[in-house]
């Protein structure tokens, strides 16, 4: 069906980047959300935070720039920009919990209509759980954006009435950016902001959550 003709992950990242306000302090977590950095305008004044203790993180390091003391949250060597600062882990997470970050972008296994997020554990008995900074980011940032495909590989929706995977945070997600649509989540329900190669009616037919 036409829902397969959506955005690529780079196009999704570009769509997320479009909604990040100029001058915002932003954490891009690990994995796919880090692609958003490639789509931020150089003059946007956006400052990237990395949980391992840095503000104004630059792009990935190449060649001679690689320095084992300068990594991002995914443990990839990165660079510093003019105006960078370093701080210890307790301060880094105080910035999150204290509400100082404007936006974080997280991946997810599931998001509920009410803005709950599950992204740290599948709950499978042989899976090794790992949470890192996800729970702190989820409850701390002023706006929590999720970037994910709307459907799992088996076709089941990842935007659900209630998460079945173990929760990362409760009622904290404000926007969900997927390959086929952008959604707003909140106490009133789920609103479709934009669709890509699909229609509101097709989404309504495939999802178990009521759409505003």
């Amino acid at each position, binding site marked *: 069906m036409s829902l397969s003709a959506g955005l690529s992950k780079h196009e999704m990242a570009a769509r997320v980047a479009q909604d990040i306000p100029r001058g915002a302090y932003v954490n891009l977590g690990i994995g796919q959300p880090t692609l958003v950095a490639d789509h931020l305008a150089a003059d946007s004044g956006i400052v990237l935070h990395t949980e391992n*203790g840095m503000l104004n993180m630059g792009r990935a390091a190449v060649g001679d720039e690689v320095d084992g003391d*300068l*990594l991002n949250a995914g443990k990839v060597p990165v660079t510093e920009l003019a105006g960078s600062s370093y701080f210890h882990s307790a301060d880094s997470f105080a910035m999150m*919990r204290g509400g100082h970050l404007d936006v974080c972008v997280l991946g997810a296994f599931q998001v509920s209509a009410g803005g709950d997020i599950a992204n740290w554990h599948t709950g499978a008995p042989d899976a090794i759980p790992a949470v890192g900074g*996800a729970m702190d980011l989820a409850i701390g940032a002023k706006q929590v954006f999720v970037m994910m495909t709307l459907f799992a590989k088996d076709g089941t929706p990842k935007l659900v009435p209630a998460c079945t995977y173990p*929760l990362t945070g*409760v009622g904290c997600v404000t926007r969900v950016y997927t390959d086929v649509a952008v959604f707003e989540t909140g106490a009133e329900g789920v609103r479709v902001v934009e669709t890509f190669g699909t229609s509101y009616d097709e989404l309504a037919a495939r999802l178990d959550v009521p759409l505003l």
Partner: protein
Amino acid sequence: MSTRICDTAAEAVDGIADGSTVLVGGFGLAGMPVQLIDALIDQGATDLTVVSNNAGNGDTGLAALLAKGRVRKVVCSFPRQSDSYVFDELYRAGRIELELVPQGNLAERMRAAGAGIGAFFSPTGAGTPLAEGKETREIDGRTYVLEHPIKGDVALVGAHRADRMGNVVYRKTARNFGPVMATAAATTIVQVREVVEVGALDPEAVVTPGIYVDRVVAV
């Protein structure tokens, strides 16, 4: 008590007892005190509880200590990584215990230990499986979870430079958990790339004052 400058990593880790709780700095290998861990392996202490952000990468540092079977329990936020095969195998075989702690709670629990705080309410993890069984409280309409300090018998910290009074500076993101762990252990042992004379560090730039540091070794 004043800081002791050690000649070797072996001297620095002398006396770490079996059954100790050891705070190990580093985020991945940045700030990981690899030479102190190697010395601890040679020293032989076992039945350890290790508190660290990760549970070892590749075959070096913390992973090497785990591989030797010296660690009974790991308290960490992110054990599963592309190169955490040593931990993964021990965990799947049921040969190591895991307490998973959200990274901010991990840092703040050690900060609390170092700062003499009895416990604190954190919003992180509220309503998730990691808060199950913990006391919660509504404060101004938000749910918080009671979190207790994590105190170490020993902290092993990797830093950049120290002076002979034990004042320590770090480098870039290798700082991470070092300054917090240095405050939270009965004995704090720091490995640095260079020990400099007293007065050689800018006092405005010192991150960990020497009061927190018991032993320093240049590696």
